């Protein structure tokens, strides 16, 4: 059984946010109106967190691209009253939109703040509906949504591999963010498969995980920047 995970090399990341937009395009993430955005209701499953520290001319940037951590011990799953969010046998933390009652308990329980709520139904100009990805549903109003490691790509990759009668390859299943990254800072694969690059990279001395002390066992690793 694979255990899907991600390694993000902060040394290579330029903060260009290609991952963000690629994710939004892949996963039918709608924009919200300007006044809604000002309220803090934008949705961005993958998000380059960045904060400027220090004073001119000695600024530094604290930053990290942040998808869902797909914890092995996910705090969000424990608290869901209806099992709308759960962890699959392959370690992907799924969100089942038609089950979700929108109580937002999982959003509060997540220490990484990766869960987004549809305060209104997502809207698109009629013409823009043409670019919606048919592999991903458009969420209704009032439910939680989050990064799924593009698991629909896994569904399709499995289908393809079975149709061709072969095993799934590392390159078959890559989330949109990893695929888009121009500096190849995002590496994705099976953490337990020694032939996948992530399984090697996560043992790099620079590898760390966010808030490891919480015991959530995230499956997203970061390679800290060299100075």
């Amino acid at each position, binding site marked *: 059984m694979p255990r899907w995970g991600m390694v993000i090399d902060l040394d290579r990341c330029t903060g260009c946010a290609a991952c963000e937009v690629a994710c939004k395009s892949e996963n039918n993430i709608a924009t919200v109106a300007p006044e809604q955005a000002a309220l*803090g209701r934008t949705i961005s499953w993958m998000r380059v967190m960045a904060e400027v520290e220090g004073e001119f001319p000695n600024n530094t940037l604290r930053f990290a691209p*942040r998808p869902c951590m797909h914890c092995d011990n996910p705090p969000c799953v424990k608290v869901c009253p209806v099992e709308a969010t759960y962890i699959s046998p392959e370690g992907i933390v799924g969100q089942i939109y038609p089950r979700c009652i929108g109580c937002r308990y999982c959003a509060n*329980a997540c220490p990484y*703040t990766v869960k987004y709520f549809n*305060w209104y*139904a997502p809207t698109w100009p009629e013409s823009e509906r043409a670019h919606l990805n048919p592999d991903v549903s458009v969420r209704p109003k009032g439910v939680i949504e989050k990064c799924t490691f593009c698991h629909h790509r896994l569904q399709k990759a499995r289908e393809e591999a079975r149709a061709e009668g072969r095993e799934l390859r590392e390159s078959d299943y890559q989330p949109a963010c990893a695929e888009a990254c121009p500096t190849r800072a995002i590496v994705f694969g099976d953490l337990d498969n020694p032939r996948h690059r992530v399984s090697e990279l996560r043992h790099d001395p620079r590898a760390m995980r*966010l808030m490891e002390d919480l015991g959530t066992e995230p499956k997203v690793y970061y390679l800290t920047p060299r100075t």
Partner: protein
Amino acid sequence: MTDDARLKLRALPDDARKLLAPLVETTWRFRAAATVLGAIALWGLTAYYLQLRFGLGRTGLNQPEYWGIYIIDFVFFIGISHAGTLISAILRISKAEWRRSITRSAEFITVLVLGFGAIQPIIDLGRPDRLLNVFLHAQLRSPLLWDVISIGLYFGASTIYLYLPMLPDLAIIRDAGIKAPRFYRFLAAGYRDTPAQRARLERVIGVLAIVVIPIAVSVHTVIGWIFAMTLRPMWHSTIFGPYFVMGAIYSGIAAILIAMVVLRRAYGFHEYFRAVHFDYMGRLLLLFSLLWFYFTFAEYLTAFYGAEPAEMRTFWAKVRGPFAAPFWTMVTCCFVIPLALMCRRATRTPGGTLVAGVAVVIGMWLERFNIVVPTSVNPRFEFESLGHYLPSWVELSILAGTFAGFILLYMVATKFFPIISIWEMREGREASVREVAERVAGYLPPEPVAAD
């Protein structure tokens, strides 16, 4: 109302006549107040309709401020609900004789406010249409589900606990025939107040009083756990269970005090709510203000001393950051004012307790605000610390509507049920003096028998 009812009322014995008067007499003040409250409640309903129609976007909630006014109200109202059942049960078990005029009004608060509390999380749901999923796909790991269970149990138990001790009074109304005979005949359910029935009733009440206490304690413990079971700074705390129970009782006592003062004035129950009641309840309030301070101090000192950065962001946000105003108002309302007023007998008067009660109710609402909001806007993942929360008019309208709805329902209840127990007063007059004398005698060594 008919003159016939008045005549029938006049024929009743003293206690019953006075205590049943609100059931037949309605003043213009009552009607005016009911109209205003009804209008506010309707306004709140309209606001909820808008929210239902367009989505939770109509609130001021956002990311990471996922929970706001509704959850604050939920905790607050369920807290108030500890007023009745728990306090009356404790007083009953401890055989505090001065309880007799207080228990009924307190129990009514419990049952009514519990309903208003329980609907708050439903108002807060993104998909109220999928509410049934909570039962169809219940996931017992979730503290939210524990809550559904314990609130359901508490609601059932406290409704019975309100109804059963009311049976003799309902029988009195039925027999007096002053109002809606069929209604009271149904409710009285054939109770005739025979000694056998009375004895059985008292036994059941005694058992219920014991059963209801652990349920009540569980309710607010579990609500505290909803927060404490997450890993969020200043929520993830073992003290939250007892802290919430204590706070619930505290706000409950304050709510009873306010109800007592208002009932006393509105229905002229001066003889039933006497100085001693306010004095004793005031002492209770004093005790709980000290307890509140102890718990709060322990909670904040622990967070401060540990000085975990994530916790400290929330801590400072409350103590001297953007939430300093609600925080220090809370301390003033929950501690300074009740302590100052209740520690002196001279201010443990109806007026003094009213001021203290109102302060505590406001303070306890703010306490819930200070628990929910500052932690929400300061998530552990510090990049997101751009949170802010300004409740929208929809939320405030629903808040006002809920308060108005509760008060209105309470007022209406006083028009259908005696808000002070008639039979317990009668029992007090008839049996208690002797019983208390015997009990007190039982505390003492037997009097020496004179040597003959």
